[in-house]
């Protein structure tokens, strides 16, 4: 079916301010940050924020920016807050346009960026919030998102998320985080009584859960392809 050809998805993308790109201090800090968690940054997509930046009116400048980021293992995929001329040059360099884009060259009250030069993740995917108890036989799937349940999850219920799962109550049913394969997803609960927990396809059934953690607030993570349960 044609409707299957185009699907929406929500991603977390880093945003780098264009003005800082050529600053040696930024270069240093970014390299430092990436060294701390190289896996997270490897081939990570980046959007260049052109807010109140007069430059970047030529295609070659975007190519240069791409090269700089490439050296840091990052991949430039688009721009935001671009004025029309910048947008055109960016498109020439094969970059996508991310909302918002400024219609005017500059805002009326320019403000100094107060944040540090560390690249900031853009708005995260929306979290699915469930405030009622998840009853036996119910299945909840948070597609492309985290799942937060502020009540108990009953035995025989199943909660699934592509991201993390948080249960502020007893987890008695099944919880499957990182259902889309995200090995960094975690499961948090106020009371572990689960029938099954799974992260990115690795699972433990109730019997295999450490008995000394039963009934306690824990988090479950995938470490070296093994599910580990630690007391919160």
């Amino acid at each position: 079916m044609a409707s299957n050809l185009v699907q929406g998805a929500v991603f977390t993308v880093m945003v780098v301010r264009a003005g800082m790109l050529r600053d040696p201090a930024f270069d240093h800090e970014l390299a430092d940050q990436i060294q701390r968690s190289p896996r997270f940054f490897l081939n990570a997509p980046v959007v260049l924020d052109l807010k109140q930046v007069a430059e970047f009116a030529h295609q070659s400048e975007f190519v240069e920016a791409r090269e700089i980021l490439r050296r840091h293992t990052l991949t430039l995929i688009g721009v935001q807050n671009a004025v029309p001329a910048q947008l055109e040059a960016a498109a020439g360099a094969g970059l996508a346009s991310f909302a918002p884009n400024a219609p005017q060259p500059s805002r009326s009250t320019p403000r100094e960026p107060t944040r540090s030069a560390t690249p900031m993740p853009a708005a995260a995917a929306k979290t699915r919030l469930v405030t009622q108890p998840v009853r036996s036989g119910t299945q909840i799937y948070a597609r492309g998102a985290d799942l937060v349940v502020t009540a108990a999850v009953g035995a025989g219920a199943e909660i699934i998320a592509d991201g993390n799962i948080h249960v502020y109550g007893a987890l008695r049913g099944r919880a499957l985080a990182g259902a889309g394969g995200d090995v960094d997803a975690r499961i948090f609960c106020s009371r572990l009584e689960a029938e099954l927990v799974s992260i990115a396809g690795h699972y433990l059934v109730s019997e295999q859960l450490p008995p000394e953690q039963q009934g306690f607030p824990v988090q479950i993570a995938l470490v070296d392809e093994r599910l580990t349960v630690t007391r919160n």
Partner: protein
Amino acid sequence: MAGKVIVLTSGKGGVGKTTSAAAFAGGLALRGHRTVVIDFDVGLRNLDLIMGCERRVVFDFINVINGDAKLNQALIKDKRNDNLFIFPTSQTRDKDALKRDGVGRVLEELKDSFDYIVCDSPAGIEHGALTAMYFADSAIIVTNPEVSSVRDSDRIIGLLASKSRRAEFNLEPVAVHLLLARYSPERVRKGEMLTIEDVKEILSIPLLGVIPESESVLRASNTGTPIVFDEESPAGRAYHDAVARFLGEQREMRFLQPERRSFFRALFGRA
């Protein structure tokens, strides 16, 4: 008059739905409310036995749904209380005979002449149980203090929140209450049964009452007398308390401690 529809349901069988439906309807009638109790367990009719009217059944719920009989031909008036009516079901048909439109029509008609319409649901989560719960304004979840019953109740509460008419039409949700039946303080003390706190914590719905396990319930069933008509029985009094709480009264929970058996009662057996 716009009657309220109360369904007694549980998911699991044998927890005391019919006994509780009979007792609850009797309790409402004894307090002066015009009450009818309907058997939704088509093909496994029991309510007539519990109510002691099995020899007076001529027409039934299915006959009325199909238009073969009028409502007042099928309703059986209780011999003990003028406010209480029994609406038996068919023993020869099956649950498919419960057509939703027909059931809705009959319930609407009953709402005109009764304060409370108490529906005794069949076990399971199939068509019969779903039809019984569909039109409910309030639900009383009958649960025993053991894990399988509690889990099935959890499932039923979930269905009430998603499959009822009130859920379908985005009305105020069905008011769900917990009735803990067959509670034995002695066995809870020994750790053989879940405690009230355990059950409340798992199901997280308000507790309407705790009915102690009692031989008088079996005796009442066998003689076709709803247990609320037995003033002596702790279970009967516990049902009266539950009815009072349902109607908004505050009452202390009773019969939660093991019964102290005196030397004489131990000698002569229990009354």
